[in-house]
């Protein structure tokens, strides 16, 4: 099984629901978003376009972050059998080499944990205790975090023997892909030819970003202006 995401930027209307959903789902620590939308203009008035590109961890086949992490001896970053690149917070030493080498700006350094409402007490949501959080949500200062493909939801599917429902059933789909109001995001197993992602990657000429880095990202994009 190889999990991938497809983002159709031709559909994306730049609403950032996926960003908000990610923040809520993954206990956003202010300043460290796992998912963000790059927005830029092309051309000059009146021939101008605005493009929205949602970005998150690409879960590369050749993750430079992992190489850097191994290199410094921390060995905190690994890619599991489902194609998900994860960080082991117990091993992470906060050196930030992974951030330095990632061409997509995915990893985020947690300097300190802050309440969502600045200078205020934690909301009941933030007070959900550690034991009720998945390990990917047990943050502490001086670690690096990033998008996990909502590993806590995928893992649940695996544990419950519902692997075939990953990306299909809302319970087993990453939050960002779930909330998109225009259905511009898809998630699933690319090795399963019947999956939506496999079909779209095949039919719609999905591209990968920044191929020149040889990272082989596992997030595919359908781009308005073609391949980058």
């Amino acid at each position: 099984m190889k999990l991938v995401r497809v983002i159709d930027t031709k559909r994306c209307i730049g609403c950032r629901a996926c960003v908000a959903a990610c923040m809520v789902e993954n206990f956003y620590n202010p300043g460290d978003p796992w998912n963000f939308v790059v927005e830029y203009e092309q051309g000059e008035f009146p021939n101008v376009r605005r493009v929205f590109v949602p970005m998150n961890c690409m879960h590369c086949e050749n993750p430079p972050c992992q190489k850097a992490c191994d290199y410094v001896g921390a060995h905190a970053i690994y890619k599991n059998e489902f194609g998900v690149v994860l960080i082991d917070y117990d091993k992470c030493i906060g050196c930030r080499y992974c951030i330095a080498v990632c061409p997509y700006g995915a990893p985020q350094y947690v300097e300190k944990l802050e309440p969502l409402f600045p200078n205020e007490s934690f909301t009941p949501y933030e007070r959900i205790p550690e034991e009720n959080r998945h390990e990917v949500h047990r943050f502490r200062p001086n670690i690096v975090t990033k998008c996990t493909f909502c590993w806590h939801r995928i893992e649940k599917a695996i544990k419950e023997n519902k692997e075939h429902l990953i990306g299909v059933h809302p319970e087993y789909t990453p939050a960002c892909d779930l909330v998109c109001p225009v259905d511009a995001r898809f998630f699933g197993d690319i090795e399963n030819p019947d999956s939506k992602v496999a079909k779209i990657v095949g039919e719609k000429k999905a591209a990968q970003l920044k191929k020149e880095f040889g990272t082989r990202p596992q997030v595919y994009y359908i781009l308005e202006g073609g391949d980058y």
Partner: protein
Amino acid sequence: MGITRRSFLKGLGAFSALASLGGLSEIARASKRVKPFREGDVRYFYSTCKMCVNFCGIKVKLQNGVIRAIYPDERRADFYNIGNCPKGVSGLFNTYNPYRLKKPLKRTNPKKGPNEDPKWVEISWEEAFEIVARKLKKIREEDPRKLVWHHGHGKYLLDDEWMKAFTSAFGTPNMVHRTTTCEAAKHVSDELTWGGHEPLPDLEYCNYLINMGGNYFEADQWARWLDHTTIFAKERGMKLVSVEPRLSNLAAKADEWVPIRPGKDVLFLLAMANVLIEKGYVDREFLLNYTNASFLVGEDGKFLRNDRGEPLVWDVKTDSPRPYVEGVKPALEGSFKIGGKTYRTVFQVLKDHVKDITPESVAEECGVPAEQIRRIAVEFGENARIGSTIVLDGKRLRYRPVAIYTFRGLTAKEYGSQNCRSALIVMQLVGALDAVGGFLLHKPGKKSYMEPSKCEYPPQRVDLKKSVFLPHAHHDVAQQVMFTLLDPKKYGLEYEPEMQIFFATNRPFSTSDAKKQFEALKKTFNVVIDICMTETAWYADIVFPDRTYLEAFGYYSGRWTPHARYHTLHYPIVNPYRIPYQNLEIMFELSKRAGFYDEFLEKINEKFKFKNPKFVKGRDYTARDAFEILWRNKAKEPLKKGMKRGFKGRLVSVEERYLSGAEKVFKGPGKPKIHLYCEELVQTADRVIQTMRKHKRVREVFKDWYELGDSEMEDFIRMKLSPLPRKEHAYPTPHRRAKDFPLHLITFKRMYRNQSGYCNVNPILNHVAHNSDHNEVWINPKTAKEHGIKEGDTVIVESRVGKVKGIAKLTHGIRPDTVGISYHYGHWSGDYPEWARKGTWVNQIIEYHPDLVSGMNSFNDTKVRIYKAEG
């Protein structure tokens, strides 16, 4: 042991003597009232989002009694939304916001002002109810009209029948909703034209959609349905043309962006009509059978009528004027001499009217090349496939897959209704109304909408709705209330309001000339029911905390779509601040104490048309009881069942979708007709002018609103109330008068704040984009260069009514002669933390010139100049 006791007592000093003030029996009682706290499992609740007015389905995840996340309700996808927006997804933080109001507050500093600390004191609910009820009672005895009730979002939390019942039981005509600050002109132009409002493009079949400045990828009442249906239609091959001065998110996805100069849309659309008629893209069958195109118009602009008052057409069979009944074959075009006078058909009048309005003649003023206007008109006419039909579900139906959609683009202007009318005329020309793929009407044919106004004077209502000032304001004129309050005599009001209640609205903050709006709040006793200390609440005398949509019951019939109808419900899931009452219960309590509870209940039954079950006088009701009655009447099922799904809906048949509207109401002889030509406006104009001649005050108000001289006044009134949109409608007051202000100012809504006043304290929404916590001043790089402004500079934007500071954003996505600033930013209420107050409060520099037809606020007409701020 003795030592211990002594040292202990010594430490306490005299304090120990106070021990008797702590009652042991109380302690004993309280020690029984504790329960162990346990963590629970994850549960899901299907409910309805009220972060704006789309009423999307949501699925709320609850963990240990805490809302963990909000997802889209997958079952709602067949009816309305397939996903959620960032507001919906992060709605839990509006509930968990620490800056919520938690207890009733009383002002102790009588001075009101933006920098006056109200010196709030927390009071008990009992005390708050008593204070407000006493005041209500006094006013009700003196003159109930002195109470003004406002709601904005409150309508959508509950449905406004509750409030209508409350105010009418109290006896005041002054219940004011927010429509004129949003889309009233669009409603009114629809109502004048086809007797209903809230039409929708039939996006499932539409092939060519012109969007006149609607930004429904971000904010619109149908945004979450329009967004995906548009995207899917585009993939199917629909062409999307967006006509607006700013490259909105919608324009960014359009096939063609037409950056028109602000306010000039009516010219663009009339030129389209010119091309359509010239090129023969005219659906004659439609015009004859469904509209008043064949009615005979005299030189005075009025219809030729028989003694029974029926309008007449020229029957080509008998060559005589006759009412359009069975057997009559009306002429569509032509000029006829009858009784020595010349009469032309409406279509002929229109044809003559737009004859000179060619694309070439308006291109410069619109800032759009003539070829482009011409091409779009031809594409529109071509795609309309006039004469074609389509078979759906075995029924042969008219097929006109083109539509023009708008929201605030054509609407939020001094000539909003006339601008919107021009789009409706273009669509009538090609027969797109209520055709497959065209523009679907919703509950058309309400007669009272299509008649001349009574032009009431003196006005009964403080918002001047339907009075001589704003004759066709079928919807409440929200922004006018404060201006009337400041000087009631000026408008001929016979009473002086004393008390205002605001339920979930921050009205003064969100309308034109906003600083002045707040002045009026100093004159009245103000009660605010809300979840946050808004700017309006800052001026309150008593503040009631409310519960949010995740804590309270609420209902609204959902947004209709071409394929579905449904009712939506939300209900309490959590209550972290343990707020004991929700909005409706506050109303129950107040009416009880002020002595009109039974009348209130009776009016509820009447307004909602409750049959079974009904409210019974004298009985106490909680919100839950009330919603049991409501849901059983509306959804015909127990509330408990509704709370399992959060909605009840049904899908509609092809028959209901296409054959129950215009086909049924307007088609054929002997039926009322769609108003291609709004003769009722001509008659209204007569009445306005008559009243104006009689009452000097009316004239003074118009003078003030539109900066007119006495001599030009009557012509202006006729022009404003003209039966067909005119070139003059592209020149609102600031365009004519603000000569020293070279740039247009347009306003718009952004996704992160729109239609919900409390998103400024939502940390997620402030973080979803690098600039979502503040707004910017959109300036074209060319203009910026001329003014020596660089990206990120602080600039001053100055209009005739004020100036504001803002941060420059240089973008090619706006016309060089225009600057754009979004709403919803620049909050200043003292209760908001600094991080929630960023940005520019644009409303304070917007000039006020209401649309004479509809009362619509003029949000997009202001002219400004910009310059770099010193230092």
